[in-house]
């Protein structure tokens, strides 16, 4: 069994990190959580390891988000002095802006649409997405169509807003 899991690990780890990254928005944490999910899989030896991993990862990401929110509250109280202004290279700022814009756009999707889209992007099949989200398999195409449309619209709206601000 561990051998099978080793295969799943090799094939799924990057996708799981990507999936988690779009939830916790921190590469290090996403990697941590992905590895922890696999560590748990080693203990539990689930039948369908791939599906199980994504369920566990989604749960951990949710807990992580709650914890991060708590920590942020606490740390905000601690930080009475503003951070020093760091100068970042142009492209880094650009990448940052892009990421923020995508994140904002994703936030505007319904949780179910977002989940389906992120699972699809992590390489899951319609059957797997249906099993994970509880949606009927026949509804996945429609869900993804809606999610994609909303994502693109929200992203474009964010871009226009940004340009308006820049111009104004």
């Amino acid at each position: 069994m561990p051998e099978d899991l080793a295969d799943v690990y090799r094939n799924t780890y990057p996708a799981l990190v990507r999936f988690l990254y779009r939830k916790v928005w921190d590469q290090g944490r996403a990697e941590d959580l992905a590895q922890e999910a696999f560590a748990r899989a080693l203990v539990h030896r689930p039948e369908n390891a791939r599906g199980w991993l994504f369920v566990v990862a989604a749960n951990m990401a949710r807990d992580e988000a709650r914890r991060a929110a708590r920590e942020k509250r606490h740390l905000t109280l601690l930080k009475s002095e503003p951070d020093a202004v760091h100068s970042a290279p142009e492209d880094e700022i650009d990448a940052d802006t892009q990421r923020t814009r995508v994140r904002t756009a994703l936030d505007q999707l319904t949780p179910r649409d977002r989940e389906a889209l992120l699972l699809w992007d992590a390489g899951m099949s319609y059957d797997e997405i249906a099993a994970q989200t509880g949606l009927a398999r026949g509804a996945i195409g429609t869900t993804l169509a809606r999610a994609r449309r909303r994502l693109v619209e929200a992203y474009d709206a964010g871009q226009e807003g940004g340009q308006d601000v820049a111009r104004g």
Partner: protein
Amino acid sequence: MSHVDEGTLHAYLDGELPSGDRATLEAHVAQCATCRAALADERALRDRASAVLGRARPLERPTPPFEQIRRTPARRPWHVRMPLAWAASIVLALGVGYLLRSPTREVAALHQQEPPAVEPTVVATNQTRAAPPAEQKTAPLPQERTRRRAAAPADEQSRTSDKTTPPADVVAAVPAVEPRNAPAAPVAAGRVNDSLQRERLQASRLEGVVVRGAAAPARSERDMAIDGAPVQPSNPKTWPLIDRRLATSVLGEEPVAVPGLAVRSFRRGPGNDGTIVVEQTLDSVTVIQIFQRPARTSLNNSAERGRADHFGRFVGGLRVEIAGPVSTDSLNRLLDQVKPLH
């Protein structure tokens, strides 16, 4: 065939349409200009959505070897995991002096002196304790001053952080920032009358949370202070090894520990407040420390006790805190399991 809906088009584009449906769709699209245009639109949308998502990808880093996963759940260093945590950690480390010190001497001293440059007042649990005898002597303290001291901490802390090197062995922290004049008793408020409320606030004081690495890194002893005396908990000179019998006699009751974990050692603190630490091994490289001392508090009110238990716990007559190089959540879970040794 009527026009193809967008869900079916997306399923087709995603290669998820069953083969029969696929053939039907292709036949229809070949002769329906509307659906052909719709398919082109949906294809463009699908590509666009992928491109948008692609702008928020993590860096492609090599997959760590599976063997690494098998050994331990991966944990990256605290400073990588929580970039902001170090600041809180410093504050917490400074709070250690408060945590384990004797209530008697220290409180009196505090009232007589201006706060030192590095005063660990902020990040804390709000522990309620009975006013110790020494405090009673200086007790009629102007309330104004109490307030001022309580209001200052956020500022003091950040200055402190700037001046202090992050202790190497501070691992993680969830600071609870509860200035003593903040609504320390929100549940009770409104139910208790004002004077009782004030009395409770005066009786409560802030207490630092112990959050340290458990291993014993060689480092300067000045990074930590307990009872004003600089110490390093795992330093054999200042925290000598003792046996269990002595630990029991220092505490006045059985020491507490996490059941099921091997006890590596008992150590006695340098102060005279009866503090000991029980060191337990989580695995071959991870040691957690269970700090404990006689609580010497009279927490009769269960609500107060519940709040005071937030980061440390009272187990029997002991005040217990936990430290170790694992996540704060894990520490809290371990702390929950602590029981007297039998």
